[in-house]
């Protein structure tokens, strides 16, 4: 997990916006989105679903990616960062 400043400074290769969607929408968006970045690149998932905050880190670790952390946007949604691992 990275510090907030490190997360802010990350070079994000692709952003998926799943704010309009509830479980399991953000998870499925993350799964689709990770296929659009190359190995080692970072995907940002935007979500306003509370469950996703827990789901994405577990999912990422389980399927072989690296969960880097989460930032709260001032507008009130979460920005979750995942580095593609396989």
């Amino acid at each position, binding site marked *: 997990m990275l510090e907030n400043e490190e997360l802010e400074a990350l070079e994000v290769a692709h952003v998926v916006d799943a704010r309009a969607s509830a479980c399991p929408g953000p998870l499925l968006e993350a799964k689709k989105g990770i296929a659009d970045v190359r190995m080692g690149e970072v995907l940002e998932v935007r979500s306003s679903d509370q469950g996703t905050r827990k789901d994405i880190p577990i*999912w990422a670790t*389980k399927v072989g990616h690296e969960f880097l952390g989460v930032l709260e946007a001032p507008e009130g949604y979460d920005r979750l960062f995942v580095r593609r691992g396989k």
Partner: protein
Amino acid sequence: MTVSSSVEASNPLDTTLTATTQQVTGDDPAARLQALEERVRQLESKLVEQSVSDRLTMVVFSGDFDRLVAAFIIALGATAYDMQVDLFVTFWGITALRDGRKHLKKDLVGTMFDRMLAAGSKELSLSRMNMAGAGVKLFRHLMREKGVHSLEDLIREAGQLGVRVHACEMSMGLMGIQREELIDYPDLDVCGVGTFIALAKDSRQTLFI
């Protein structure tokens, strides 16, 4: 060398291993080592054969709207983990697979079932608080408001993501429902309990909904 004998004891019918306990426990160290290596190799290959695959199998028995939503959300969640998902749909679950726009000419009993059963996902009731259909309307409204996909969208997405649906032939026969009345779904077949058992045997998780 009790390892080999305990493996054999747990698998008494296994006659395919050629490296025997005698070879492994013999006097010549080089021969023993070779026999052990051979045995490990054989056991390893068997482990791969026997291990369950990363698969989720569900029995969808219920024809309740809420249970169907749960079943399809779980199925979709599993696809995010690259799991193969198989839904064995039986009894009341079949009603969710009916396509309300497809009608067939039927005998008396078949017609009776047609009238009594939900003709597709849009006519399902809630398992609780249905209130003559007002409950399910409220749920659909709330789901839309909170960004939960509708049951019809969940089913469509499941089809796109490779979730396989197996409709129970026996249930369909009892209720006079035919293949031609079911929804257009990419991977749908009509089968029996044998298919479900074969799938469940190789699944890490099996759920009954």
